Each structure stands twice: as C-alpha cells, then as structure tokens.
C-alpha cells in the first residue's frame, strides 16, 4: 500500500508524504479511543450494554436518534 502513485512531474513541487510507520501509533491509539467513544454515544445500553443502567442511553438519547443510529 505504500507505493506513491503520483507520477512525478517536472517543475511541479512534489507533495510530501507522511510515512505510515510514523502514522501507525497515532492511528491505532486514536482509532481505539474513537471507537470506544462512538460506541458509548451510538450503542451502549441499547443493543449491547457495557455499563449497567440506562444513564448514558438517556443522556445521549436525542443525539443517537438525530445522528441516525438505531434506537428505540
């Protein structure tokens, strides 16, 4: 996946790339954190419950409906 597909053109300044190796830890950490946050806003205490009760569901209820996540 790391081939640069841009054909180098004489005169055009080449756009720098960020090595995937440098990006990986950021992507992994933020990806996991983001998935967790999205889960709590969109799904927790609905189909699946990680935390008992209904407090989170109730609190983000309107956001869950308006952002298009399944709710009831």
């Amino acid at each position, binding site marked *: 996946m790391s081939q640069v*597909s841009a054909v180098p053109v004489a005169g055009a300044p080449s*756009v720098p790339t960020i090595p995937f190796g440098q990006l990986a830890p*950021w992507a992994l950490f933020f990806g996991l954190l983001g998935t967790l946050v999205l889960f709590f806003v969109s799904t927790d205490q609905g*189909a699946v419950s990680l935390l008992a*009760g209904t*407090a989170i569901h*109730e609190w983000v209820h*309107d*956001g869950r409906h308006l952002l*298009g996540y399944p709710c009831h």
Partner: protein
Amino acid sequence: MTARAFLIRGLIAGLVAGIATFFVAYSVGEPHVETAIALEESGTAAEEAPTDASHDHGDEAAGGHSHTHSHSHGDEGEDTEVSRDSQRTWGLLTGSLAVGLVLGGIVALVAAGTIGRMGRLQPGQSTALITLLGFVAFALVPFLKYPANPPAVGSGDTIGDRTALYFGFVVVSVLTAVAATYVALRLRNRLGTYGGVVAGAAGYLAVMVVAGQLFATVNEVGDFPADTLWFFRRASLFTLATMWGVIGVVLTGLVGRLYAAQTERAQRRALAASL
C-alpha cells in the same frame, strides 16, 4: 506535516463541527423529536397499529410493548430519569461534540495518510476529498439503507438486529470505499484520472447495490405519520451533512494553511542557501 499536526487540526475541526451540529440538530431536528414523543405518549403511534391486514407495513410495528420516552425504558431495574430538557440540550450537545471530535480526528489521520499519495492532489484537496468520501461511505449510503428513525418508530425487541444490520452495513460501505479508492489510484496509472475515478466509483456503487439487496430491510414504521417521519429524517440528514460539511471545510482550510506555511518556509530556506 506530521501526524500530530493533522490530529490537532482534526480535533479543532471536530469541535467546531460538533458545536454547529448541535445547533442544527437542536433547531431543525428537535421539534420533530418532540412531535414523535408526543405521538408515542398519546399512544397513537406504532403501538396501536390497527390490524396487519390494512397494509403490509404494520406487521412488525405492533410489538405490543410500551415504553415511554420521557423517559424510562423501564426494562432495567434501575431507571435513570433524564428530563427532556436535559436530553434535548446538554445531552444532545454531549453526543454532537463527542461524535464531532472522534470523526474530526479520524478524518484528519486518514487525510494525513493520503497526502501526497492521491495523484497530484495538493494536501488541502486530498483532505477535502477524504472528507467527502467519508460522508458518503460512513453517513449518506448507510442512511439510504437504514434511515434514521424518530422515537416511537422501532421496537425495543428488535434493537439488537437493527444495530447489527446498521453497523454491518456501515462496515461494508467503509471497507468498500477504501478498496475502491485504492483501486482507483492504481488504475489511474494505466487509465488516467478519468478512467480510474469512474472505475472506482462504479465499483463502489456495484458492491453497495448488491449489499443493499442482501441486507435485510427494516420496516417498523407502522402507522406513524408520514410527514413527521419525513421531516425527522430530513432533519437527521441535515444534521449529518452539517457534521461532515463543517469538518471538511475547517480541516481543509487548516491543512491548506499548514502546507502553505511549510512551503513558504522551505522556499525561504532554499533562497537563503542560494545566497
């Protein structure tokens, strides 16, 4: 141009988008949420769908369970009451900000991985394109298959199935979009930009049309009023479009400025070295 610089800008864009999304959702969406809850409480909505014979879309709606939306779902022992006032203000703001920050950060990191790797697009341009693809793959296409539903539509008994179908479809859509983008970039070397983009877009469309046929249809509308349903769904789409649109505009602007500043620095250094 580092991962850190992108992530910070993504979080800023997400924060702005979350605030904007809250205001749009509050002013455009909340009136219809209120209408739906009023309908639900007066019992005229899905709960009392007449007989299934009248039309075929009442069949699943009459689940016979009752839950009030103001607001205890009553299934767990410990009910937590959150007032409607809190739900439609601070609760909605919490959800909007959280989703905004997450989406802003993820879009920024994907944009960071694609700069310089999408043909001859400049960093700002590829960032805008990534946001657009994200909106289509993560929000718009899933919405077309499983549109948002207001309170009172959707039975608590099927929430498990509906959640699995929705996120399954989102995963298929996002993975297909990533693959189609990769294929488009590879084909671009052989077919040119036009051929590559058309092939990638057609591939995504073909896979998603088939997936849309294969995934089960959810219809729990019952005799919920069609106009309220449409107003709610339209408001939901405005909400999603605001989220992604603001992320795209703010992040593209910030990345463009970052790149311009870096280019200028590099040129000044080159000039100084040549003297």
